[in-house]
């Protein structure tokens, strides 16, 4: 589904490549978390995938084809929900369809209401974003990402601003959505427990510049409940990942 082939990127004004000859791949239908400390360059990987940044060298392929020749090949959900406050919830959710310009307003509204029902937000279509709670806003943002109609979803710390209880219920909800829709998900986080609970394998950005992502397979099978985090092999994986991250921040 997604392939990074010796990709390098250097920010203007920097004297080193923050992404340096990085190669990795994500199989169709997989759920990978990219784990790393803040500022290590995780989000740069997403910005390269969604075309906001252009690699200095190397090639990124989605579905076997270079991203340069493609449009609308990935759905991107940033850390903030970025719901437009002047639009109703359904108008926000329908934004990808509106940009694509292929449906009438009534059709867009139908699709948006369906997507809202899928994420448990029926009855919220005509509300304004400020009338929703943090968790509801993230679900609306996820519905919008789904309506982009792409098989590859890039989720950049989408739950980091939520309180603990909302966050864990959103994690369970996201796993359920992934299993129902069979999307390929890349999920950035710096929360080890979140990475271990959500993903089929964790890709660790162990140092900056990012030259490789160390892959750690998560042993618990799907479907998962939070009880799986108590398994000894899961606890051991958590400790191993924490050790890896600690090495990164210890001078």
């Amino acid at each position, binding site marked *: 589904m997604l392939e990074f082939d010796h990709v390098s990127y250097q920010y203007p004004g920097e004297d080193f490549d923050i992404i340096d000859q990085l190669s990795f791949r994500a199989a169709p239908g997989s759920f990978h978390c990219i784990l790393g400390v803040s500022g290590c360059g995780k989000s740069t990987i997403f910005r390269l995938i969604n075309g*906001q940044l252009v690699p200095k060298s190397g090639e990124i392929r989605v579905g076997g084809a270079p991203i340069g020749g493609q449009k609308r090949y990935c759905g991107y959900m940033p850390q903030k929900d970025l719901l437009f406050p002047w639009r109703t919830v359904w108008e926000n959710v329908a934004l*990808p369809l509106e940009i694509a310009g292929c449906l009438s307003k009534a059709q867009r509204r139908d699709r948006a209401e369906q997507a809202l029902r899928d994420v448990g937000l029926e009855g919220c279509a005509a509300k304004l974003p400020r009338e929703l709670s943090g968790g509801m806003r993230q679900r609306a943002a996820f519905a919008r990402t789904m309506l982009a109609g792409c098989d590859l979803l890039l989720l950049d710390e989408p739950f980091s601003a939520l309180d603990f209880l909302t966050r864990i219920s959103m994690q369970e909800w996201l796993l359920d959505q992934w299993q129902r829709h069979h999307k390929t998900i890349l999920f950035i986080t710096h929360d080890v427990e979140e990475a271990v609970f959500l993903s089929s394998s964790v890709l660790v950005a162990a140092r900056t510049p990012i030259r490789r992502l160390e892959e750690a397979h998560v042993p618990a099978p799907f479907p998962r409940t939070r009880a799986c985090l108590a398994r000894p092999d899961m606890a051991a994986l958590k400790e191993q990942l924490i050790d890896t991250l600690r090495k990164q921040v210890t001078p």
Partner: protein
Amino acid sequence: MKAAKRNLPALAFLLALVMLWQLGAMELGAAYILPTPAQIAEKLWQLRVPLFTVHLPATLSVTAVGLGISLVLGLLLAVCMDASPLVRKVLYPLVVASQTIPTTAIAPLFVLWFGYGLWSKVLVTILITFFPIAITVYDGFRSASQEMAELLQSYGAGVGAVFWKVKIPCALPYFFSALKMAIPMSVIGAAIGEWLGAQRGLGYFSRRMMTQLDGAGVFAPIVLLSAAAMLCVALVSLLERRVLRWRDGG
């Protein structure tokens, strides 16, 4: 009812000021220098026909035409400066420089160049209102969220879609602020233009009363000007609340 309750302190203070003015002016006893509010109200009533049928429409015409042109030019300049850093670099200093010109000094020149008709007054109005509209709306465009723009671009949006769906909504609150600032300024601009050279208008009427040492006659058109400006600002505020309903408390 709610609005009346909210504005009660301001109204009470205004009433106290008017009463103080009334008492002070009565004590002074020189209506040609400082007429009482009651004398001004009486004069307004006496002169209601020429004021409301000739001079107020003349001033409002200048204000409307001047403000309309300022809006078109200001918005156009704001869009161009936002779209092109080169345009901003070239025009921004000129726009700022235009504000350093003392309006009362240049207005007589406009009368010389364009005569006593509408356009000399309109130019004064444009000179005063163009700057706040252009700069405030430009700031509104600059305030647009880069993250929202990038999100739209990730859906395949081009420059036009980002402009209409992100920049314009982000700039709207700034636009209304600019408009509320520009309305009183355009009324002032029209009055200055009329004061310096006109055949009708509230500024012209006020000046004519001055030559007759009619204090109440000088104040009456000024009161009318203020009332007209306040009414227009109130209408714009009403429109703003309807259009920007999504804002907190909107």
